[in-house]
């Protein structure tokens, strides 16, 4: 079949496994520091950076819909969703968003603080070179995330509890032109 093919470099450009969620990650010295892992996830995660557009030609007579010269990027909606299988006090505070942590106690607030917005990194295996030293990765850096899904817990008989999450990245007044996410695609090298 002439058009039933896959690229020859397919095996070198696949993202593999569920990846990890980290509070911080150094792309110049990529490593998973255990203390930076937010928790264990279940079922993988979903990242969605969705642009929204305005069609300035939409109300102009005789102008075709979706004319590229009149299309304007309005905004970005950047979210990460999934479920945690594990929980800690620090993660519970992050998922509650507007909350304070004192010892084992998480106390929700009715007002947001700037400190409630924290960066999150997704990092997953990438490429055909996946060794511990030079393994490839796809990393997504979400800036100023807030838990917009709140704190959720779903239990079930004879099953592990699941904590569904939704984190939304936010712009900042300090850097209004900085879209709050970055993507790194780094091929691995031989060990």
């Amino acid at each position, binding site marked *: 079949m002439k058009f039933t093919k*896959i690229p*020859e470099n*397919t*095996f070198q450009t696949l993202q*593999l*496994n569920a990846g990890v969620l980290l509070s911080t990650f150094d792309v110049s010295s990529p490593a998973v520091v255990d203390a930076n892992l937010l928790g264990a996830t279940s079922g993988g995660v979903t990242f969605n950076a969705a642009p929204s557009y305005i069609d300035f030609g939409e109300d102009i007579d005789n102008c075709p819909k979706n004319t590229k010269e009149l299309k304007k990027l309005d905004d970005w909606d950047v979210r990460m969703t999934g479920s945690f299988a594990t929980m800690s006090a620090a993660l519970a505070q992050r998922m509650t968003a507007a909350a304070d942590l004192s010892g084992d106690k998480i106390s929700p607030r009715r007002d947001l603080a700037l400190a409630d917005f924290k960066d999150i990194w997704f990092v997953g*295996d990438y490429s*055909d070179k*996946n060794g511990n030293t030079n393994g490839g990765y796809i990393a997504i850096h979400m800036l100023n995330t807030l838990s917009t899904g709140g704190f959720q817990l779903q239990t079930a008989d004879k099953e592990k509890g699941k904590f569904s999450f939704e984190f939304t990245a936010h712009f900042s007044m300090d850097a209004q032109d900085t879209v709050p996410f970055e993507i790194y695609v780094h091929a691995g090298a031989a060990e």
Partner: protein
Amino acid sequence: MDKAAALYSFWASFGLLAVDEQAMYDTTFDPPEQYVSYEDAQDSFDYPVTIGADLWYRSMSWADISQKAEEISEAIGRGGKMIPYDGGAIWITRGSPFSQRISSDTSNDVRRIHININAEFLSA
């Protein structure tokens, strides 16, 4: 290296003689004290296959053979292992159950552990 050679190189990387299980039916096959036999099953991108293998140790103890099964498990790791071949790679992950002790019905000094892996051949 073709797919079959890559699969062989994986099983041969653990310091044991690795034999395609079809070779065991050869009447001239003289089993050594320790070896691994494996199924040679292949497919292509998006069609992972389950491949069985067996560790065989002539011993009264399960200690050494169990240690070898653990060594293979650790080598594969949680995320799997890539074995390159010409134009692609095999992505090997642990099957379930990964390992299982099996008693020999012919000899009480043969220890056998059956191993399952999942293998996806990342090419056409």
